[in-house]
């Protein structure tokens, strides 16, 4: 007797024979799968290329094998000796300052100074315009120091090489501009253009004063002593053991640019989710294509059943076929996805200043392939499960006992397993688990809603819709007849559009917030590095400039959290959203009174004249995320000295007020004797801002001004670029939606051809048929767009209100544009199908049927 099923070899052979008829029916299948997998593979490869660049070029990016970073203080002689003995050493100082020029009418500009010694750079080369040597560009000639600057600063101050520029007490000559700064990435996010100078020139600026926000970096080339990563790790461990009190931040070539790496990882994560959405939207097309294909194979399946094929054998044949084609699409997509980063190498170099090199990155390709296979299975098991139930009796007559619409329970379970595997893979691969869970829940909810919507639409049309005109009646009936494209159109277009609406709504709200709301509440300037003896003069200068200016000042120090509740900061498993508090230095302050913009939520504020044991007030949500509370002790390293304090109370802070807020506020006695500067916020009339900027820059060259509007513009630009990037990938979802939509509408071509022939034979004009189709397609577009607007707005509302904590405002432009675009898209693609049916001659068609 025949075996229970057939071997995979036989199944593949029969599947291959079945494909001899051509791949025409699989065009949408191949396109959807290839586009989705290619998107994920390409985005993953881009991120991997950048990460590999950072990892491979770690030494160049860091400027050595290891870097010891200090804030606000130089290394002690003991620390210096230790570093110098380890290998070749270079000392680099970075700080922000105001640059102005007597030769320019422009207001002073915020710049990022980098002062280097003779040993700089230990690794790689600085490239300057005109092939000028670094030493020649920076050394003192005829009593004038030289600087090399970012070309952007030339434009901002309207200067030329050879002009003079003032930084603090220094007037320097601009000798050339910087083309390549190999260790640029270690500086992280820069608010101003770079100015490169010597250490001697930095001294001449007189900007380095006690408490000034200067970062000192000591890079060491360890030579052969650290040829292997293990040797380097051992050296770092030894350093931490030998000088535990130094409080310096040690970075090695193995994690040269952690912020950039994190940024790339996060961006890659969001992009991949957008890519996965595209793939899932494509899944609808994949399911449609396989269902349509299997519909054309009913006679073949029934014949096979009559010849002894069992249900499992049928399933195996068509599963082999689907996997064979999926393999074809996935291999092509992986090849394209792997090649894209290489093709876009120049764009990548501009995007992130990392030396990128083309290369094959198997991990993201493997992930993309697995997503491709899982999506294929999740969306095809339903039609495949049904196909195995096609009875052989189908060959004997058209009507047999009605076939169940649902496949057997084990197929539903297998689909659930595939979907769970997609979520599990995303969770395992990407660090940001909470967002992945929200994403999975959101996608599942959208699918369920869209499915419900399509059923609801069909049911509504069946029960109630009954137009007066024949065209309307025809259109309404088409929306609920068997084989209607309604579910496919609503599902495919709905998900893509909902994603676009969400991003567009977030963008609109963010832009509006940046443009209108913030300036009303936000200060005009932040002034940094105000020395204690300058504070009174500074306040007088501001008052003279604008009597009505609102001024707020606070003392400020920098310090690093080293211990919390008896545990080293490095050992604490902090909540993801507060990990930044443990990374690097934080601003610290002290206050006798509860700061403005804060509200006490637990514990008690200390008395005004408190001088007892050191106490600290922490922001409630951050303390919670770090796992500490009232009564716990924290240790902070300030300028190399450890301070400990007990948490006395917790505050809730309105961060969006953009006032001065600190995570940690200490009792005055704890910190007021440590060297510190003051930070001031000034809120004033916009037209007086430039005058104040000039006045402050002139009288207090060491004080750095950050203009809120410019800072917000910079952040806004960055956010917008990110949104554009994510939106760009989301557009792929929309393209995918259109592919699925086109496939779904085209699959109804034969039925429409027959309908048109019958209608014509009964007296319907082409105009009547066309109008009916137009109403039907527009109906799909409008209903789907309304859904997308509703769900997209809810998602955007949640992100704006709960994640970004900003006021929400509904934008009318986005919905109108969405409804318009969806209607136009569905009508165009629908009519492309209908147009061909109208030209067919009814007699010929009806004879052949």
């Amino acid at each position: 007797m025949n075996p229970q099923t057939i071997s995979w070899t036989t199944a593949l052979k029969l599947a291959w024979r079945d494909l001899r008829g051509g791949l025409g029916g699989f065009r949408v299948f191949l396109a959807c799968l290839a586009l989705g997998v290619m998107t994920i593979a390409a985005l993953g490869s881009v991120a991997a290329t950048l990460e590999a660049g950072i990892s491979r070029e770690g030494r160049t990016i860091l400027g050595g094998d290891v870097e010891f970073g200090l804030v606000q203080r130089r290394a002690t002689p003991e620390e210096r000796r230790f570093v110098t003995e380890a290998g070749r050493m270079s000392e680099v100082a970075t700080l922000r300052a105001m640059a102005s020029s007597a030769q320019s009418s422009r207001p002073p500009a915020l710049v990022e100074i980098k002062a280097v010694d003779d040993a700089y750079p230990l690794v790689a080369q600085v490239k300057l315009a005109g092939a000028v040597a670094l030493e020649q560009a920076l050394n003192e000639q005829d009593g004038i120091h030289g600087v090399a600057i970012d070309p952007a600063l030339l434009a901002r101050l309207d200067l030329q090489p050879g002009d003079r520029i003032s930084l603090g007490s220094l007037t320097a000559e601009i000798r050339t501009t910087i083309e390549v700064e190999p260790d640029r990435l270690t500086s992280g996010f820069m608010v101003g253009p770079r100015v490169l100078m010597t250490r001697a020139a930095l001294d001449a600026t007189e900007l380095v004063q006690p408490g000034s926000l200067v970062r000192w970096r000591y890079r060491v080339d360890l030579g052969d002593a650290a040829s292997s990563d293990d040797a380097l790790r051992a050296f770092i461990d030894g350093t931490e053991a030998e000088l535990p009190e130094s409080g310096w931040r040690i970075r090695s070539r193995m994690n040269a640019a952690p912020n950039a790496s994190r940024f790339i990882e996060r961006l890659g994560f969001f992009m991949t989710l957008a890519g996965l959405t595209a793939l899932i939207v494509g899944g609808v097309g994949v399911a449609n294509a396989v269902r349509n294909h299997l519909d054309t194979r009913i006679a073949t399946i029934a014949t096979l059943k009559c010849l002894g094929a069992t249900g499992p054998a049928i399933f195996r044949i068509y599963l082999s076929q689907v996997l064979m084609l999926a393999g074809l699409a996935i291999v092509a997509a992986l090849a394209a996805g792997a090649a894209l980063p290489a093709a876009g190498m120049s764009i990548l170099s501009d995007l992130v200043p990392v030396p990128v090199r083309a290369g094959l990155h198997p991990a993201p390709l493997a992930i993309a392939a697995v997503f491709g296979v899982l999506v294929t299975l999740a969306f095809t098991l339903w039609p495949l499960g049904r196909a195995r139930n096609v009875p052989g009796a189908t060959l004997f007559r058209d009507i047999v006992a009605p076939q169940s619409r649902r496949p057997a329970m084990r197929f539903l379970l297998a689909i659930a397993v595939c979907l769970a595997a997609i979520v599990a893979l995303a969770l395992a691969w990407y660090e940001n688990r909470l967002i992945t869970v929200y994403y999975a829940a959101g996608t599942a909810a959208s699918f369920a809603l869209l499915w419900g919507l399509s059923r609801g639409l069909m049911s509504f049309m069946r029960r109630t819709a009954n137009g007066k005109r024949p065209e309307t009646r025809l259109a309404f009936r088409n929306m609920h007849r068997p084989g209607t494209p309604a579910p496919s159109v609503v599902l495919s277009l709905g998900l893509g559009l909902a994603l676009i609406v969400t991003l567009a709504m977030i963008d609109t709200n963010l832009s509006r917030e940046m443009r209108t709301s913030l300036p009303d509440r936000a200060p005009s300037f932040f002034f940094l590095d105000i020395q204690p003896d300058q504070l009174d003069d500074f306040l007088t200068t501001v008052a003279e400039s604008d009597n009505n200016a609102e001024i707020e000042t606070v003392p400020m120090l920098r310090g690093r959290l080293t211990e919390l509740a008896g545990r080293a900061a490095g050992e604490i498993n902090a909540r993801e959203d507060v990990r930044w508090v443990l990374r690097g230095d934080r601003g610290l302050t002290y206050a006798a009174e509860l700061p403005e913009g804060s509200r006490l939520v637990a514990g008690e504020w200390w008395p005004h004249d408190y001088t007892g044991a050191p106490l600290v007030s922490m922001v409630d949500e951050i303390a919670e995320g770090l796992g500490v509370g009232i009564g716990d002790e924290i240790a902070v390293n300030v300028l190399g000295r450890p301070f400990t304090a007990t948490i006395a109370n917790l505050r809730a802070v309105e961060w969006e007020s953009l006032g001065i807020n600190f995570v940690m506020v200490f009792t005055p006695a704890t910190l007021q004797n440590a060297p510190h500067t003051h930070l001031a916020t000034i809120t004033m009339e916009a037209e007086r801002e430039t005058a104040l900027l000039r006045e402050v820059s002139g009288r207090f060259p060491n004080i750095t001004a950050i203009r809120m509007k410019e800072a917000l513009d910079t952040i806004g630009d960055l956010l917008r670029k990110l949104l554009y990037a994510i939106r760009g990938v989301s557009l792929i979802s929309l393209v995918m939606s259109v592919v699925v939509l086109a496939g779904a509408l085209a699959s109804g071509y034969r039925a429409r051809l027959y309908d048109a022939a019958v209608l014509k034979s009964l007296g319907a004009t082409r105009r009547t048929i066309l109008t009916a189709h137009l109403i039907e397609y527009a109906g799909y577009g409008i209903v789907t767009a309304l859904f997308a607007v509703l769900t997209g707005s809810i998602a955007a509302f949640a992100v704006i209100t709960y994640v970004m904590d900003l006021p929400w405002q509904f934008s009318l432009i986005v919905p109108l544009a969405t409804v318009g675009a969806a209607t136009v898209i569905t009508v165009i693609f629908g009519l492309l199908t209908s147009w061909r049916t109208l030209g067919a001659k009814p007699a010929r068609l009806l004879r052949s049927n």
Partner: protein
Amino acid sequence: MKDPLVSLRGVALTLHSNAGPVEILRGIDLDVPAGETLGLVGPSGSGKSTLLMVMAGLEAVTAGTVEVDGTALKDLNEDALARFRGDAIGIVFQSFHLIPTMTALENVALPLELAGARDAQEKAALELDQVGLSHRLDHYPGQLSGGEQQRVAIARALVTGARLVLADEPTGNLDQETGTKIVDLLFSLHAARGMTLVLVTHDRDLAGRCSRVAHLADGRIASIASGQPSAAIATAS
């Protein structure tokens, strides 16, 4: 009478449609001895094709028992029925139902391949030779005439050594001359191999060549004529 290869007892079949239940077969008792040729005749809708499907295990009966080659079909699930068909039953369709994307050789080898036979292609080639199509092995159905397609279908039905061959109007889609040739082939193969042949037909001449003819009307066997098929058809008319 020889032992029956097919035995039907009190077979009834009711299908449920949106318009309500439809009684298609009503209490059929029928034995078909091994090696017999039986013609099923009757007007459209009388239940001929359904009776054939019941014998093939393609349709489960609502009441009664069906035994083929000693196997009670109601004891088998759908997959076991498929395997039983692959082993014991060959079916010839009015519309041939060859797989259009497979060559004549591949179509005939198909049931053997489904059964896991290693020499499927060789056996299929021999079978095609038996039906006179050794020169058409690599032709696709679209490249064959109607008669040739039906010969491929017959070869496919017989290649597994089926003990029961069910033919549903095997000449219904062919012109008279070609139909006659196909019937000649079918009966000569029956004579050579001795399998049981049950065929549904509207063709008096074809039914006349069967050893017995059962006339169906309204889901029941109205009469069975032995050796006098023409008379039976005349009665029914």
